[in-house]
């Protein structure tokens, strides 16, 4: 995997807004700069716009106002090649893993090479030696290369999420977006997955933007926290600055056990 220097890409939001058909506003007046190599946690209640925010960065949710600049690429991009090139530089991890469960682990990881391989290879599944090597290295990095030829659906939730992380690594991305990556996992597994994300940020210099529901996880792993409420940014600072009062602002109420992973684990 390549080193950071030549691959850096800052993310800049300028006056970004998203309104859905029917007039529902997902995001409003977002001005934000995420320098390359940062690890950022986005927190907020469900419905606050966390998912929408990360999905605007790779164009899965089209923005309706303002612009987003990723490296030297601009959104809204026209659909087609320009958007695909932008997406190829951005990996994404989902809450429900989104693996092709009937396909083998290695085939899922090779999805990260779809953007660059020739079409005939992707259609026949006849991947080049180099692509397979990249996929294997990605699996090694998340520690489950021994499962390469197992059907993805036969793995545990935590293992599936690590396959999904390997899929993003196979893209050799500059940025990884994670949308509630541990919401379907138990606490110990959550920490394993969060540490994987922390490592790819620290070792590969990949910018990582994570949506998190649990505040203790956000504080522990996010060196920078962004609080969303009603589609607007209400907090942007370090984990230490985010005290009880700040969380009360983000959540519109004081904290309960529901908002903290470890508390839930003790129940």
């Amino acid at each position, binding site marked *: 995997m390549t080193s950071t220097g030549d691959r850096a890409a800052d993310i800049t939001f300028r006056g970004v807004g998203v309104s859905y058909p029917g007039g529902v506003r997902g995001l409003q007046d977002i001005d934000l700069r995420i320098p390359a190599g940062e690890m950022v946690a986005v927190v907020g209640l469900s419905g606050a716009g966390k998912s929408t925010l990360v999905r605007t960065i790779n164009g899965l949710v089209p923005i309706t106002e303002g612009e987003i600049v990723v490296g030297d690429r601009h959104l809204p991009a026209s659909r087609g090649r320009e958007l*695909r090139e932008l997406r190829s530089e951005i990996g994404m991890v989902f809450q429900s893993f989104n693996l092709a469960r009937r396909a083998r682990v290695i085939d899922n990881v090779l999805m990260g090479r779809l953007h660059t391989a020739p079409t005939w290879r992707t259609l026949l599944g006849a991947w080049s030696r180099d692509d397979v090597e990249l996929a294997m290295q990605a699996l090694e990095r998340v520690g489950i290369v021994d499962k390469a030829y197992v059907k993805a659906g036969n793995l545990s939730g935590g293992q599936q999420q690590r396959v999904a992380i390997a899929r993003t690594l196979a893209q050799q991305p500059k940025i990884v977006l994670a949308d509630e990556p541990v919401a379907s996992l138990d606490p110990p597994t959550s920490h394993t997955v969060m540490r994987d994300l922390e490592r790819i940020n620290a070792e590969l210099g990949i910018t990582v933007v994570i949506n998190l529901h649990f505040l203790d996880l956000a504080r522990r792993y996010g060196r920078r926290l962004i609080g969303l409420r009603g589609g607007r940014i209400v907090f942007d600072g370090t984990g230490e600055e985010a005290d009880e009062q700040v969380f009360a602002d983000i959540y519109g109420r004081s904290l309960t056990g529901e908002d903290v992973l470890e508390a839930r684990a003790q129940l």
Partner: protein
Amino acid sequence: MRPVRPRTAWKGLLVLAVVAVITVWAGFGVQVDVGALIKNFSNAADKVVLLAQPDYGFFPETLSALAQTLQMAVIATAAGAAIGLPLSFLASRVTDPSRPLVAVVRSVLNVVRSVPDLLYAAILVTIVGTGALSGVIALVLFNVGIVVKLISEAIDAVDRGPLEAALATGATWVRADRAAVLPQILPVYASQTLYVLELNVRASTVIGLVGGGGLGILIDQVRTFYRYHQLSLIILEILVVVVLLEAASSWLRKRLVS
């Protein structure tokens, strides 16, 4: 307060009356004559007795026609399934972002499917001539219609998560469909292809009646000369082949889909 029991019985009676009227009307329309049925009963009984005594000596002469029927079914299944798979992706809203194209593919295939296989064979015999080729082409048309209908519906029902993930890597639709959707529908595809093979063995026997090749041509010949013992053997062969194939394919399909 408890609600008053609604009086809806008259609705059921009305529906029943309408159905009865339509049925009686249809019966008069095609002149169902119960009297004639009873009068000709002995005639029918004679034929049944003849059919109950298959002429096993005729078996060697049916072999080539039986083989041709099976070959037609296999070739048509392979061609129909191969043509139907890519068309299924074009006919689903999940895998194809272009709505007009989906609408065009769907409506063309609705027309293709609404023509019965026997009619295809009858028309093709006048164009291509009698023989197995007409029968095979008729079966392929019939199969493409079925495959696209069943598989595009399976595609509509897949989990869209993997597709979203593949598109998020910067893949084109075609590549994302191949990597994220195809693995999900392969078992259903294999299972429906076996089902189509079953249908084809049955259909290819009948298609011969209009000149499409296979056992049907033989049926037509022996029937014309009232050789009921031989006809009986052919029917028995079809029965055995269809039952065996159905058993084999349902055994395989259970393993494929689970």
